[in-house]
């Protein structure tokens, strides 16, 4: 993999009048297709590495020719290196968090919202639970029953995308996280602007909404996500390659 004075490679390089390292690297890497500026930067950086490696070999009492071969032995396959650099620089524009949290979370939010809209329009009436004499807690039972499936899908998707446990939980319960965020934003605004409703009623109403739209659905989503919080047998390697 590294080091060692490969005689074949050394023979191939002997006779090269060093040391325009940039030119040497540019010729061997070929066009990277990553934009001229970035390409120039990569070439300059790799040339600097070769220069340092060359001098490192000289310091270990190698002759200039051996040091040259030693430095270049760091690359076995230039076209593969070219491809790997291109792949790394042009890596998927979606970062890890997008793939493992935002994408699965938003898709599950969309799907669960569509289902909820369908149920509210065409489904049975919500179940009313009178925890408070003035206002009932509304439960859309078919929607609640479906939520573990969305929780499972979100967590599974996140796990497939390499998400850690926290990302999987968040992707699983994502639909209610958005609702919770909305409630916590709406409450202070409502208290501020609607002064005709008593504060105690606000609190009760908020508590019931939180229970019906965040806590109970959140528990249902989490239930579905639970089996996917553990690593799959195939994912036990710490390698993230």
């Amino acid at each position, binding site marked *: 993999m590294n080091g060692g004075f490969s005689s074949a490679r050394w023979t191939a390089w002997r006779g090269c009048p060093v040391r325009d390292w940039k030119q040497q690297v540019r010729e061997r890497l070929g066009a990277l297709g990553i934009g001229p500026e970035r390409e120039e930067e990569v070439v300059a950086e790799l040339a600097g590495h070769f220069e340092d*490696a060359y001098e490192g070999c000289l310091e270990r009492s190698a002759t200039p020719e051996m040091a040259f071969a030693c430095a270049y*032995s760091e690359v076995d396959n230039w076209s593969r290196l070219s491809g790997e650099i291109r792949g*790394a620089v042009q890596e998927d524009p979606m970062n890890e968090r997008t793939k493992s949290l935002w994408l699965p979370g938003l898709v599950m939010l969309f799907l669960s919202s569509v289902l909820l809209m369908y149920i509210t329009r065409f489904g049975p009436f919500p179940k009313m639970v009178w925890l408070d004499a003035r206002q009932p807690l509304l439960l859309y039972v078919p929607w609640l029953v479906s939520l573990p499936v969305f929780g499972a899908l979100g967590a599974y998707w996140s796990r497939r995308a390499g998400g850690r446990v926290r990302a999987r939980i968040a992707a699983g319960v994502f639909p209610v996280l958005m609702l919770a965020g909305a409630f916590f934003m709406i409450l202070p605004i409502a208290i501020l602007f609607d002064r005709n409703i008593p504060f105690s009623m606000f609190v009760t109403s908020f508590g019931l909404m939180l229970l019906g739209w965040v806590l109970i659905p959140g528990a249902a989503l989490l239930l579905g996500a639970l089996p996917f919080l553990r690593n799959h047998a195939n994912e036990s390697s*710490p*390698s993230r390659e």
Partner: protein
Amino acid sequence: MTIVPASMKRGSAELAILSVLLEEPLHGYEISKRIEEHTGGVLRFNLASLYPMLYRLEKRGWVKASWQTTPSGRRRRCYSLTAAGRKQLPPLRDEWRLFFRALDRLAGVSRA
């Protein structure tokens, strides 16, 4: 000296690079030398394995690079750890710890 296979090196590259950058900002060649020194030569990253990984880490925002002039007057692209990269270290360490513990339970590595 036993050399760790290339596949494991690839898996450990992120942790190795982030760990040495935790000490101080370094350019590519220094990173490879530092890793080699710290591991007694067991882990070595040559140019071909190091730079694609550095570019990937940079793309993820775990490290950032800037051109700096070394004491010898040369321009080198130095890498330093970002806050995001710093946050990645503990979970990466935990994953590897877990991995080695599992391997130890399985094969008694520490008793071998």
